[in-house]
């Protein structure tokens, strides 16, 4: 069980590499510039949502970027929630 974390904007190679390694129901946490993948109306958001992932977004980074963390596309987590994800999923893959 893998927790994928993405800290790169959709124009970065990390974004495409990450998406290629994921299948529906895989778990992805967006943090840092990774949160821009959920900008409403953006191509990144479309690509991401099409994957039907179990999607999380780090609340503080979403707010820093000017995104609404609770817009329904992803589950917002704080740092406590991030740690909880790593408890549940023993392996992490960092994409950046």
């Amino acid at each position, binding site marked *: 069980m893998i927790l994928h*974390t993405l*800290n*790169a904007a959709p124009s970065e190679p*990390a974004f495409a590499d990450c998406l290629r390694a994921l299948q529906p129901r895989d778990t992805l946490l967006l*943090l*840092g*510039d990774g949160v821009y993948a959920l900008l409403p109306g953006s191509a990144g958001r479309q690509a991401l949502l099409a994957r039907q992932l179990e999607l999380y977004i*780090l609340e*503080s*980074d979403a707010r820093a970027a000017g995104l609404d963390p609770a817009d329904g596309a992803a589950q917002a987590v704080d*740092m*406590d*929630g*991030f*740690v*909880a994800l*790593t*408890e*549940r999923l*023993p392996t*992490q893959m*960092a994409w*950046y």
Partner: protein
Amino acid sequence: MRSAAGLIYSLLVMSHPASGHGSRTAVAFARGALARGHRIHRVFFLDDGAAVGAAGAVFPQDEENPLELWTALAATHSLELVLCVSSALRRGILDTGEAARHERGTATIHRAFTIAGLGQLVDAWTSSERLVTFGG
């Protein structure tokens, strides 16, 4: 979510402290993990991450300073903060031993950090139940 009490974590930090989010996120994660009752075996700083150990880094007063965040957390929880030796040397961060060996005048590392080889990272993952990486 239920807390799986008492896991052993190590962290691998590759983000430069002055750019990106990773170093600050890693500190906050460490704080969060400790708050949930976990133990942090070691924090290993590799590649650009090692730049955080520079004692002389000065940040603007209106910004969080990753060096201070790490050293404050290390002081309260006796965290082991280890810089990869080759990453640190390339970035001008030397302890007294390395400064003497390479004939540099003085140590430039903050005293909260130590310098070691990659074996300490390998040991971190064999001795921990979780390794969480922070990059970018």
